[in-house]
């Protein structure tokens, strides 16, 4: 199984070890963003995706999560 984001081998999380770490960081940082700016998860993903300080792999994971949520939203609507 390959990683949801790149062509590396993935583990049971669906991510390779490198992108998994980015995913963990994204989830962990949301609490600080919510406290500071009172923003939703979707807004948060948009913000970190366009922030020039966000790391390349974290941006890739954020894009993947945004795309996934769009698909989920389409399914429910």
């Amino acid at each position: 199984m390959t990683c949801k984001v790149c062509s590396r081998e993935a583990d049971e999380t669906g991510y390779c070890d490198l992108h998994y770490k980015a995913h963990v960081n994204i989830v962990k940082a949301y609490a600080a963003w919510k406290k500071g700016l009172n923003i939703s998860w979707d807004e948060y993903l948009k913000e970190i995706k366009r922030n020039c300080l966000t790391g390349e792999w974290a941006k890739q994971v954020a894009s993947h999560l945004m795309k996934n949520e769009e698909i989920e939203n389409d399914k429910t609507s």
Partner: protein
Amino acid sequence: MKYSTLTPEEIQESYANMSPTLDFSLIEAGLARHEIDWLYGVNLSRALTQAAKKHSGRYTTLSTGRVQGPTLKFLATRELSIRNFVPIPYWTVSATFGLDHSVFEAAYEKNPIDTKAEANAIVKTCMGKKGTVRTVESQKILINPPPPFDLGSLQNEAYRLFKYTPMFTLKVAQRLYLDALISYPRTSCQRLPISIGYKTILQKLAKSDEHGRFARALLAKPELKPKEGKGFDPAHPAIYPTGTRPDRMLNTAERRIWNLVVRRFMAVFAESSIQQTIKATIAVHINEFTLTGRQTIEEGWMHFYKPFVHSNDFVFPRLVKGQEIDIENVAAQGEFTKPPPRYNPSSLLKKMQKEKLGTKATRAGIIQTLYDRKYITQEKIVVTEVGFEVVRVLHQYCPDVLSSKLTAKLEDAMSEIQEKNETRQILLERAIEILQTITSRLKEQEPAIGKQLSRALKESRLEELTVGTCPICKTGKLVVLHSKKTGKRFVGCTNYFKNTCANAFPLPQSGVVKPLHNVCASCGSPTVQIYQKGKHSWKLCINPVCGKKQPGGKAK
């Protein structure tokens, strides 16, 4: 014979006081280091190179070693935290006020603030209020002279001041040593023994136009006592100038490094610099702001080390406790936490020194090898796909090779040989035993390792040829391609041969093309560097109708 400079006097003295025997334990320790490094390097590098070749059929030199592996791991760990970094927002509040026709900015004492609402609330409570000086504190601080140069600190300073790589600085210092202008540079010592003759060196320097007045000022002191550092090397003292003046025209780099060594040598004999810091607390309603200033009272050693040191003085007008101040503005500024900084050749060298990886003579060469293998690129070091994969493979199958503990353990054992508590033979046998376990594990996993490394090599090769993202289809990358009909090269989209995107740009047909990974300031198209034999290299915007070019493609 033992000597640290190539001046005729020191060579003659060394010859007259020759040691009766060679230092055999030092030789044994040196040989053990060479043999262990060779054994590790040759076997591990071969294992990686062969694994990749067997899988892809294509030869690429891959290497690792006792010091190279742990060094690359530091870089990969840092790269990982940069690429996975998620910034966190925070806010800072500052108050600006005018005093004596100048504007000053004081920082809120509880910066940084976690929430935007809290920051805005602080600004609101301060608006339209006057400030009152609550406290004014001043403190004198002594800044000691820096220790004399060992090779590492010379390389770091040359990078800070002139952006010279450690390898380049070593080469320049070596030339200055061969010209008898400075002492032996491959030293980790930060001490200057009295036997080098401080006074004689300064007397020689006193005759020069450039350094004369500084040397004469030091000679007027009742006692010459150098400031020394912790570093000690039994073989050589710290780097110092011989006092001899160059008998040939030095090039810019040689002149700069020589001047740096001379000025540092003089600075270590000077007094401490005395600085005064002033901290004022200003209350605005219920909030407090602080203003910090700094002023040099006595230059001390900084006078001798100019222009390589600046005092960064920041002086504000005299404030008195209870004084009322008109606040011009109070503002909240939104900011983000920053990722850790990238290593550069100088900070990496410092890290290697701290972790006791390699020796003063080998560290610069190891950094260069990492560049040569294309494991890392750019001055602010970026780890490539291949660099990452080498670390991942070694971490997965033989993590010991990446551990700085293993290499430090071997270093200690080598010191034991020097102390005659260990023999070279026993240490070599132990090293071979460890190595055999590692190589057999690598052999067992050869197909998997080969697959991982080949994928990374392929991606790295594509990355090297990539000029930018295709602006037309936005899914492909612009790379250097060759026409199937004519064999001519051009920049085209990776979807070009799939017939889904026809975006293409012409290229000169001779010379080497290297993507610059930046865009043209005029039209925003990617740029490449062209290297043609016998000509200066030149930068080319791939857009043939770029506004910067004249008709015919040449730059205006």
